[in-house]
């Protein structure tokens, strides 16, 4: 790592305009995270058009701020009303809410903020150390390796998303198929355009993402309105005691390491990281039987992990140009909308984007700590606004934003269509993230496949004779079938146990 790069990053991050948008990003992220019913993917997708007038550095600083800010915000509802603001805060409810019932809501929120700050800052150091060498190595990759990497991203996301693996897989395939819409770049033949001129230049990812993540979620909330319970917990004593620190430092350290490495895996993300961190903490703790009754390490571990994971997820995005989750897929799409070419060359051709983002994350984490410690009661008061009043505001921003991408009413129609589809998917547990990720990766995946086959004069051997692509494809196959094998093994074990008893 060249220290000049980091200095360049800090010189950008401390510019007033970047400080302002980092602050806005983390503030909006905290609010989005605190509101049940709207997650970071929807938040980033809806607010992406607002960043069009900005430089790519400022825009990425704001979008990343929303992403990691949402991780902080999710804690507030988990602790105060036993409702996770987003999925990565589910584990925090177990001990956080119990602490609130015992009159220790302030300590839970304080430790969550401090743990998130420590994990967020340490994981930025890890991002800074891991991404540049990975990008340097990936520059040597050819189309077969890229193809394999993208297949890995899709298979892990499809198999690791909650619920049925088949549903994750079918959504990824639907996304890839939607990615083929438009004029074929190599031959010029129109595919699935049905004589609609708007479809010749592909299906824009943003209307689809806004439709599935934001409008679909809003329709679900119209179907089943969210009523947040009144906050009964008293917020005082936000600074943890010496005993709290003694109980939590190990959990924060383990949560950071687990979160960062799980975050770097395509598809795993902050939710799985927080589950793993909580489970690990329970296993190593001397008071494992007390977990779920309000122990502070039960809050510190998942909160540290989800923050570290959101930073870890930026490693494959920035170093390889391959997103691992719905939110980072939207961020990748944002990079292309700003005219940048995501991939390993991004760090050498546009070092200001990566290093400006890294430096801003140090600053952003400090801002979040300052915002979350004294202002936690203010964020909690956001929960007093009925969600039904927020629905028109979110919809208005989403519709105007989708229009502004290409100044196209057709795109608004696409967003509404995918909003309806997203609602049905939400109702019947079909995950949206694999579809959006596949839509973003689809054209790149097809290009890499066709270039590889051109290199090998039409033979698929090229994917298995090159060691890196072969290893990645084997890993992708394992990631796809591992959950299936695990389920079969569990069923066989259950049957054996039932037979024995």
């Amino acid at each position, binding site marked *: 790592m060249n220290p000049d790069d980091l200095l360049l990053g800090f010189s950008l991050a401390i510019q007033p305009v970047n400080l302002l948008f980092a602050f806005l990003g983390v503030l909006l992220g905290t609010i989005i995270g605190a509101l049940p019913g709207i997650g970071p993917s929807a938040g980033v997708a809806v607010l992406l058009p607002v960043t069009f007038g900005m430089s790519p550095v400022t825009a990425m600083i704001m979008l990343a701020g929303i992403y990691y800010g949402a991780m902080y915000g999710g804690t507030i509802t988990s602790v105060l009303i036993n409702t996770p603001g987003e999925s990565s805060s589910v584990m925090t409810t177990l001990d956080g809410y119990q602490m609130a019932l015992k009159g220790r809501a302030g300590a839970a929120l304080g430790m969550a903020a401090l743990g998130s700050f420590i994990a967020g800052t340490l994981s930025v150091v890890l991002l800074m150390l891991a991404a540049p060498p990975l990008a340097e190595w990936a520059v040597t990759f050819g189309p077969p390796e890229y193809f394999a990497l993208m297949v890995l991203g899709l298979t892990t996301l499809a198999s690791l998303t909650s619920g049925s693996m088949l549903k994750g897989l079918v959504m990824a*395939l639907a996304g890839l198929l939607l990615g083929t819409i438009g004029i074929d770049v190599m*031959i010029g033949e129109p595919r699935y355009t049905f004589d609609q001129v708007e479809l010749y230049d592909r299906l824009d990812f943003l209307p689809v993402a806004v439709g599935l993540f934001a409008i679909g979620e809003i329709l679900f909330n119209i179907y089943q309105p969210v009523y947040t319970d009144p906050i009964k917990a008293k917020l005082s004593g936000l600074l943890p005691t010496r005993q709290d620190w003694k109980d939590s430092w190990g959990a924060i350290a383990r949560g950071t390491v687990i979160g960062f490495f799980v975050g770097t895996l395509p598809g795993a993300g902050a939710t799985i990281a927080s589950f793993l961190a909580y489970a690990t903490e329970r296993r190593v703790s001397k008071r494992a039987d007390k977990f779920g009754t309000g122990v502070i390490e039960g809050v510190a571990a998942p909160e540290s992990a989800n923050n570290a994971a959101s930073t870890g997820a930026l490693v494959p995005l920035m170093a390889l140009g391959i997103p691992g989750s719905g939110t980072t897929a939207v961020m990748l799409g944002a990079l292309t909308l700003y005219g940048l070419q995501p991939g390993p060359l991004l760090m050498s051709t546009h070092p200001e984007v990566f290093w400006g983002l890294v430096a801003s994350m140090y600053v952003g984490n400090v801002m979040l700590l300052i915002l979350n410690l004294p202002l936690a009661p203010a964020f909690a008061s956001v929960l007093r606004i009925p969600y039904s009043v927020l629905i028109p505001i979110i919809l208005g921003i989403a519709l105007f934003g989708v229009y*502004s991408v290409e100044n196209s009413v057709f795109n608004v*129609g696409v967003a509404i269509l995918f*909003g309806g589809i997203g*609602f049905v998917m939400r*109702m019947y547990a079909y995950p949206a993230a694999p579809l959006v990720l596949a839509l973003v990766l689809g054209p790149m995946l097809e290009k890499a496949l066709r270039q590889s*086959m051109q290199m090998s004069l039409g033979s698929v051997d090229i994917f298995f004779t090159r060691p890196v692509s072969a290893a990645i494809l084997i890993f992708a196959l394992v990631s796809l079938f591992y959950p299936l094998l695990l389920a079969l093994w569990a069923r066989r074990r259950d049957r054996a146990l039932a037979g024995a008893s």
Partner: protein
Amino acid sequence: MTRADFYGGVILAVFFGAALWEGLTFQYGTEFAPGPGFAPVWLSTLGLCVSLAIAAHGLLLMRRTERSAETEPPALEPRGVARVVFTLIGLTAMIFVVPSLGLALAIAGFLLYLTLVVQRHSLLVAICASAGTVVFVYLVFVRFLDVPVPTGPLGF
């Protein structure tokens, strides 16, 4: 979700089947590389297989549920579905009135309909939420970001 899985799988199979039908009309390959039809054909074939697997899984679970006399999960809540359908009708109507009313007015009209008719807020809340939202987004996108939007009879 046994019945829903079965029907969901069937609907997806129809979608992938139609995509395969259309995909077969594209040029499958060139001399040394896959052509424009290669990805659509393979993706829709794989999608068709996975959809049928979902439907078959749903059917198996349905049979098992019938045998064990278990009850299906609760059906859809009719009032909730009506709210969603009315919202989607409003959104679709909004698209058609954009050319004559302009984007800002069309969105304002839809938000007023949403808050007043679908969400049953009071007139004051509905007017404040819809007008406030549109004024805010108009200032951000049109004034601040210079996005040209279709204008209506009132000039915005």
